[in-house]
């Protein structure tokens, strides 16, 4: 909603356009909008959607363990914003330290070559941690006749490949960048700042 910032109380899309209506209705609509904060269409959408939700929730309340379900919904609401987000932001702040401390910008910035495999492995772990940590070993064995023990190794293989792939792309980019900037390479040979630069990054 790009318009929100400029129009204060107005929310939502372009509901109940006021152009071309008789003045009395226009005044009524304007008052409605001022009081409600949106057009009549907005209110209608809300009432329809929330009624459906109310109906569904009234069924859910009767299906058994409603309090536990409520707890899971609450957990689902805060899971990203109050748990995952602070966690990955803190980790990312740590990755700031991968910046070279010397003044010269790196030939190829290393940072996203660490971030990308880290983020993807993190998502894979979020998806498959019950298998990777064997949390469902008993039910899994009962259903499939197999053990979950392979998944820790499998995850390590996938995560390892992601880091290796990223390192390979980094190396390629580094070589290409050096080749495309012959002056820089010549400069390097003279003063040897390439080594210093590598140390700062690693």
């Amino acid at each position, binding site marked *: *909603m*790009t318009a929100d910032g400029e129009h204060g109380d107005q929310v939502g899309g372009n509901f109940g356009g006021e152009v071309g209506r008789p003045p009395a209705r226009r005044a009524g609509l304007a008052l409605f909008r001022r009081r409600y*904060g949106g057009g009549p269409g907005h209110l209608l959408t809300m009432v329809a959607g929330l009624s459906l939700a109310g109906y569904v929730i009234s069924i859910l309340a009767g299906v058994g363990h409603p309090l536990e379900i409520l707890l899971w919904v609450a957990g689902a609401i805060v899971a990203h*914003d109050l748990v995952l987000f602070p966690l990955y932001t803190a980790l990312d702040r740590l990755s700031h330290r991968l910046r070279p401390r010397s003044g010269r910008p790196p030939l190829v910035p290393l940072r996203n070559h660490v971030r990308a495999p880290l983020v993807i492995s993190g*998502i894979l772990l979020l998806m498959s941690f019950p*298998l990777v940590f064997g*949390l469902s070993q008993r039910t899994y064995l*009962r259903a*499939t006749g197999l053990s979950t023990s392979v998944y820790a190794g499998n995850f390590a293989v996938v995560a390892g490949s992601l880091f290796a792939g990223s390192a390979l792309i980094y190396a390629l980019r580094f070589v290409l960048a050096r080749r495309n900037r012959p002056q820089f390479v010549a400069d390097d040979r003279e003063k040897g700042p390439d080594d210093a630069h590598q140390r700062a990054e690693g």
Partner: protein
Amino acid sequence: MSDRPAPAPANRLALRLARPVALIRRVVSGPEIDALAAKTQRLWRSPIRGPWITSVFGSLLLVGIPIMFVTGLLSYVAYDPRLAGNDNTPQHGILGFYLFNWVSSPSWVYRISQGIHVSLGLVLLPIILAKLWSVIPKLFEVPPVRSVAHALERVSLVLLVGGIGLELATGIADIEYFYPWKFDFYDVHFYGAWAFMSGFLIHVWVKFPAMVKALRSRSLRRELSTSLADTRPETSGELVARAPAPATISRRGLIGLVMGASATVFFTTAGETIRSLHGTALLAPRGRRKGRDPNDFEVNITFETSRIDPRVTGARWRLEVEGQRRVKLSRAQLLSMPQTTAELPIACVEGWSTVQTWTGVALVDLARLAGAKVGSDLLAVSLEPPGSPYRSATLAGNQAGNPAALLALKVNGADLSPDHGFPARIIVPGAPGVHCTKWVQQLRFLPS
């Protein structure tokens, strides 16, 4: 605000609705709140957060989520919940309005629809996380409520965010056999989907114009060719950082990262239903094989788990077929009947599937033998003790009447193994795997 004329009666409702919000606004306005709002806004520093990037992820979800919902509903249809004992959510009320008789051809129909449901659900996980990241400043909006309309929108966001989290958590945990709860999976995944969709429909209805406007504000092609060095914050919009930090990743970098994550999820899981991707399916819960024997394909519920006494599956075993008359058949008698061979998938609600070559007696032949009308509904009961969740299932007439629907005795040329349902199991084209009852004891063709 004080010199406004008295409102017309038609507007009294709006006034009444607005009263609590006006009260909140009075409490939470003033210079201190404005200062807090300014401070909060300064906490968000990402220079690439903004309406455009949110709308990119939003538009992907706008395509993906309806597919999830439709395939989810189809899976419910595929269980034929209107037949006795098949409904996992019998309290569904009007939420079953769309139910129709599930098809039994082509044989891969459920394999495709449920394969899409589970694989796509996993692929959407990175996009949903990216979308949540992109809108996080909205959770900490100051003031938290600006108007009645805004308050209702925030309530709908509880359904949206809580709903998608619940659907992802229960869906993913279920396919990994992880049950850290006491409630019923079907209840929560089914009703949770409807609660989520009510929030989703509100959200799409309200935000669609803003999404289109934001997508038009920048060219995707230009963004995809903009390097990190040239990455600048978006120019306007409520998600744009007031005090942006220098960019450390470009927009194309973030989009590439999210697409890369989705692709990695796909290639490490989809092999449990797409054979050609089997080799990379290292994180797929299923699709693993014990060995190379004819019976070494995926098992769901082992013989040991079924708690069936091994003695009752031996020479003593008789199949009871009931139609107009009752017939008892030994396994040898079944093997001496005309045999039908069909290549059919087992397609599980958990998204995995496996196609095998099954041989046995066609269900239509058994119907004729028992004097039942071909096309009658069929109740199949297994040897499992009463109370077992998969002890029986009812097949619709079009399934039991499909010429390829079998009471299978062999698979890939070998006798069924105990894990795959020896002495005999049902295998039906197009039906969810759970309806292919194993260790069959009784077949009852139901009068229509």
